[in-house]
C-alpha cells in the first residue's frame, strides 16, 4: 500500500512540477489571472458598491451566491454532525477518558479571567462583522470568534454552563435564522423584480439610500446572517464532538 501510494503521489507530483514551468513568473502583475477580471474588481468595486475592502465586496456581492452556499455548507455540516452522533448505540465501557484527570471544580483564576475576557471577545467579534467593509474581516471571521467565545466558556466552566447560554436547539434555530436572513434578502430582491441577490433593487424599500449604498447596506445584512449561522453551527459542532453527541459531560 505504501509503495503504491508513493508511486501515485510521485506521478502526480511530477506532472504538477512539469506544469509549473508553464506558469507565469511569480508576482507578475501582468499575468492572465491578475489582469482580466481582477482589473474590473479593483477599479469598479468602490464605485459599484461603496465598499473599500474589495474582498468583502466580491465575496458578498459579485459572488454572493457562492457565499450563500458556503453558509449552507456550514449549516449542512452542523445538521449532519448532530444527525451522525445523535444515533446509534452508546457503549459506556468505551467512554472512558484516556489520560485525563477526573473533572474537577473549575479553577477560580481561570473562571474570573474568562469572565473578563468573554465580553471583550464578543465585542471584537461584532466589530469584525460590522467593520468587514473597511478592514479584513466579515461575517465568517466574526462568527468564528463568537463561537470561540462560547467554546472558551465551556472550557473554563463546563459544557452545561455554555449550553445554558446557547442550547443545541437554540443553536439550530440561529443557524436557520442566519441562512434565512441571507436567502431572504436575496428573495426580497426577486420580489422587487430584480435578480436573486441583486441588492441595488433594495433602495426602493430602504430609506435614504441610492442603489450603490443599498448594495453596501445589504452586504452588512448578509454578513450578519453569515455570522449567526457560523457562530451557532460551529459551537454546535464543538458541543457534539466534545460530548460524543450526548451533550452532557464536556471536557
Amino acid at each position, binding site marked *: 500500500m505504501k509503495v503504491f*501510494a508513493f508511486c501515485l503521489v510521485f506521478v502526480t507530483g511530477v506532472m504538477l512540477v512539469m506544469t509549473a514551468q508553464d506558469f507565469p513568473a511569480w508576482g507578475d502583475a501582468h499575468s492572465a489571472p491578475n489582469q482580466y477580471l481582477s482589473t474590473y474588481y479593483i477599479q469598479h468595486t468602490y464605485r459599484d458598491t461603496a465598499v473599500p475592502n474589495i474582498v468583502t465586496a466580491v465575496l458578498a456581492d459579485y459572488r454572493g451566491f457562492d457565499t450563500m452556499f458556503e453558509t449552507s455548507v456550514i449549516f449542512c455540516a452542523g445538521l449532519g454532525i448532530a444527525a451522525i452522533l445523535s444515533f446509534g448505540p452508546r457503549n459506556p465501557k468505551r467512554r472512558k477518558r484516556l489520560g485525563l484527570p477526573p473533572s474537577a471544580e473549575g479553577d477560580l483564576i481561570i473562571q474570573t479571567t474568562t469572565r473578563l475576557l468573554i465580553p471583550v471577545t464578543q465585542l471584537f467579534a461584532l466589530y469584525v462583522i460590522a467593520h468587514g467593509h473597511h478592514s479584513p474581516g466579515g461575517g*465568517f471571521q466574526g462568527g468564528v470568534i463568537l463561537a470561540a467565545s462560547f467554546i472558551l466558556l465551556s472550557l473554563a466552566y463546563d459544557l452545561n454552563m455554555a449550553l445554558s447560554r446557547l442550547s443545541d436547539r437554540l443553536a439550530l434555530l440561529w443557524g436557520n435564522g442566519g441562512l434565512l436572513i441571507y436567502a431572504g434578502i436575496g428573495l426580497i430582491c426577486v420580489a422587487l423584480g430584480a435578480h436573486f441577490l441583486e441588492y441595488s433593487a433594495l433602495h426602493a424599500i430602504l430609506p435614504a439610500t441610492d442603489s450603490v449604498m443599498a448594495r453596501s447596506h445589504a452586504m452588512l445584512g448578509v454578513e450578519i446572517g453569515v455570522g449567526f449561522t457560523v457562530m451557532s453551527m460551529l459551537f454546535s459542532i464543538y458541543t457534539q464532538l466534545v460530548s460524543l453527541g450526548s451533550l452532557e459531560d464536556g471536557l
Partner: protein
Amino acid sequence: MTDLMEFVVSRFNYWIYVVLMMIGLYAMISKRNYVKKLIGMTIFQTSIILFYVSIGVKSNATIPIVDHHDVVHSEILVDHYANPLPHVLMLTAIVVGVATLGVGLAVIEKIYRQHGTIEEPELLADVDQT
C-alpha cells in the same frame, strides 16, 4: 547556474505547494490512523489554498483594500493592489475544509463508539468479524 537559481527562486511557492500536496495526499492514502488521515487532508487542502493565493500575488502590491484618498483624488492603479479574486475563492474553500473536517471527526467518533479503535487494520478485522 544563475539561470537555474533564478528559475528555482522565481517559482518556489509553486514547488513548495507541490511538495505539501504530495505529503498530504500520501498521508491520506497510506496512513493507517484515521485522525492522521484527516490531518493529511488538512495539509492537502491548505496546499491548494496556497496555490490559489500564490496566483494572486503581485510584487510591490498592497492588500486589496482601496484607499479612500486614491478614489477621490486620483485613479485607482490596478498594479498597486493584490488580486482579490483568489482570496475570495479561498475563503470559501477554507470554510468547506473545516466543515469536511468536522464531519470526518464526527464519523471517527461514531466508529470509535462502535468498534473501540480508529486504526484501519484492527478496524477492518473487527468489521469482518461482525
